[in-house]
């Protein structure tokens, strides 16, 4: 497999989602950003190919092809994810997260769930909700006191007969207000420390599950973020994840959740690349044919070297993401590469959007200006899914085996 060129499958994904980004996402991006509203209509329209349960469905919906059943052969899932994520980030990061946010919850069910749990999750996600909207899922992991340090979870799950009683609050939960199903992480065995953390599938409407306040955010405003409270919420023990043994071995607690987060990092970095590319192309479009005091904008090094710098950084970030994905698809360790891809992509998105705003001058102060929105959207990529500092901590630990403080 050639790392540096798309195969026909990846080219097809790129073309399809790139077209979707421009035709379906861009025209509604400013409105959903301004109104801080989920793009429910688009989510329904896109559901035939961008399923909220894609992690459980495999890739067929998106590509029309089944996964190769031979586990030793190279996969394409990670590369499809990075190629697709860049295009969706290029369209609108907030809408992209609304379209894909359920995947965060579906992934641990796909990886750690039993057949029965997968079936239950899919049942809970089938059909439309009582407002006629596609159903979404929420991964409830972060807590008010637990952002980067997810090993310090305070939410507890107390055994009680055939049930667990879950108690605690979750913070920054994508789809936290509207989800039809939650995958909540709680400490089920405090004596076991990290190994005692378990995930539970909890249906909306379960007594004690209380969706909290929706957050007003700097960016990605088309994606809903809310607190979720579990007030002695009783969940049947059959809904506890970690009872299955996957092809990759037993998958149970927090360490597997962290591995799952590792696996999404290249795609997250790639989504940031999409934001950077959007701002870069917007600026390039202004420069082509534009003039400055009677001279072509393109004749000015001040402007063109900035664009060249942006192009370099975008290309470097994209290569890092593709390299990390290629390694994952070829069953090779990619922890370092995934962290590099995520951290570098976030940095590039911030750099490019900030510089693009400076070069646009007063134009970028206009309400609903896309570059200003991309500037606000870009910041979260250096925070969620492991901050830039966490990525560097991972890389540093790989160098010496120590956690620098």
């Amino acid at each position, binding site marked *: 497999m050639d790392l540096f060129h798309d195969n026909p499958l990846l080219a097809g994904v790129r073309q399809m989602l790139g077209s979707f980004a421009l035709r379906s996402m861009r025209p509604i991006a400013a409105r959903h950003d301004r109104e801080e509203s989920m793009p429910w209509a688009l989510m329904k329209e896109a559901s035939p190919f961008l399923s909220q349960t894609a992690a459980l469905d495999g890739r067929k919906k998106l590509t029309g092809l089944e996964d190769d059943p031979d586990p030793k052969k190279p996969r394409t899932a990670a590369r499809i994810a990075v190629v697709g994520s860049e295009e969706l980030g290029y369209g609108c990061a907030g809408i992209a997260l609304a379209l894909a946010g359920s995947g965060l919850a579906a992934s641990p069910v796909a990886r750690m769930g039993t057949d029965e749990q997968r079936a239950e999750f899919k049942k809970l996600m089938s059909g439309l909700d009582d407002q006629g909207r596609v159903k979404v899922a929420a991964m409830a992991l*972060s807590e008010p*006191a*637990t*952002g*980067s*340090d997810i090993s*310090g979870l305070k939410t507890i799950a107390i055994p009680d007969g055939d049930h667990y009683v879950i108690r605690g609050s979750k*913070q*920054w939960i994508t789809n936290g207000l509207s989800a039809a199903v939650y995958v909540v992480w709680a400490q089920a065995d405090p004596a076991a420390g990290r190994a005692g953390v378990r995930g539970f599938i909890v249906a909306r409407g379960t007594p004690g599950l209380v969706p909290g306040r929706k*957050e*007003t*955010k*700097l*960016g990605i405003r088309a994606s809903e*973020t809310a607190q979720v409270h579990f007030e002695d919420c009783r969940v049947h023990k059959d809904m506890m994840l970690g009872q299955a043994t996957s092809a990759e071995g037993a998958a149970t607690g927090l360490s597997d959740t962290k591995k799952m987060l590792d696996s999404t990092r290249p795609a997250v970095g790639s989504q940031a690349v999409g934001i950077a590319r959007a701002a870069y192309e917007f600026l390039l479009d202004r420069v082509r044919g534009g003039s*400055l*005091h009677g001279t072509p904008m393109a004749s*000015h090094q*001040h*402007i063109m070297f900035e664009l060249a710098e942006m192009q370099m950084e975008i290309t470097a970030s994209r290569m890092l993401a593709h390299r990390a994905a290629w390694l994952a698809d070829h069953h090779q360790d990619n922890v370092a590469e995934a962290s590099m891809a995520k951290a570098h992509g976030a940095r590039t998105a*911030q750099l490019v959007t*900030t510089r693009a*705003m*400076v*070069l*646009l*001058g*007063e*134009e*970028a*102060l*206009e*309400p609903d200006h896309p570059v*200003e929105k991309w*500037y*606000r959207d870009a*910041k*979260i990529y*250096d*925070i*969620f899914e492991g*901050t*830039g*500092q966490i990525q*560097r901590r991972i890389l540093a630990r790989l160098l010496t085996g120590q*956690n*620098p*403080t």
Partner: protein
Amino acid sequence: MDFTLDAEQDLIVQTVRKFADRDLRSWTADADRAGTPPERLIATATDLGFFDEVSRDDPASYAHLTRALRGFELGRGCAGLAALLETNVEPALAVATWGQAAAKDALFTSLSTGGLAAFAHDSRGLLTVVPAAGDLHVSGKLGPVPALAIARHVLVAAGGVLMLVPTSKLTLTPITPSGWRAACWATAQLDGVVVPADHVVSSDPAAIATLLAWARVSLAARAAGVATAAMEYAQAYAAERVQFGQPIGTFESLIRLHDDAVTGAIAARLCALHAAWALDARRAEALDLASRARVLAGDVVARATIDAVQIYGGYGFVNDYPVEKLMRDARAFEALHGDERLGRVLTERRLQEAV
């Protein structure tokens, strides 16, 4: 050389700092969410003497250094409200310095009755200015301009001319940009607006350059204040927030983020003060120093506010905490009047080619 403030400067700094800490910081979040200033702002600021400081008869006595000291403190309080509090200075100073009697009468009569004035620089070249029978006819789009939505007059720099225009002659569209949301922004459409000859304040390039230098120093000082505020908030948060068993403010990477930002903010403040001092001293290099101060302050406020959000982590991204607003507010400091670096490069290139 002495960096000590004199008694009057010190009193002003202490007074404005108290106002910023006690009032502006308590108003800023609600004003941002509402997209409008608190009703008490104008009255409180009037009591503090914000709006009548420019002497019609003696504009040369105006102290830019004092203004920069004050602007820094206002920036620490709220960038959007600071823009409103500073809005009269450029129009009043320019009209008092170069304007004719009719323009002075119109503006200072308005200011004396609580009217506000805005300053708009057509940095994108969207306006056309055509002489006609001694007057000027102005058409095109103006803005976005802070304070324009509530101003009675706007001082417009366009087409090599400075002119005072009553806002009643304009078709205003109030807007709420992402940053400085409480600053009563507007754009304006001008369709052949007639500016009488006696409201043309100046067509001297040196006057316009001087006016822009005043604005640049003011922006730079306020930007340094915003950067300082960002790090004040971030440091307090980092001291309380514990992750991995220690306050995050004890991690070396965050110490460095904070430290570099504070270094930048101190440097930006000093550059702004230096440029202001040079303006007051009528130094030949004052205009260049003003431009350099804005370049540095723009970089510093961008970096500091982005890094403050980073230090806050997830909390930094939500509106309940102060720093996401600061990141939005940072942009106007670099955007107003256009890309400062570009202006510098083009000016230097013209100079080199002329040699």
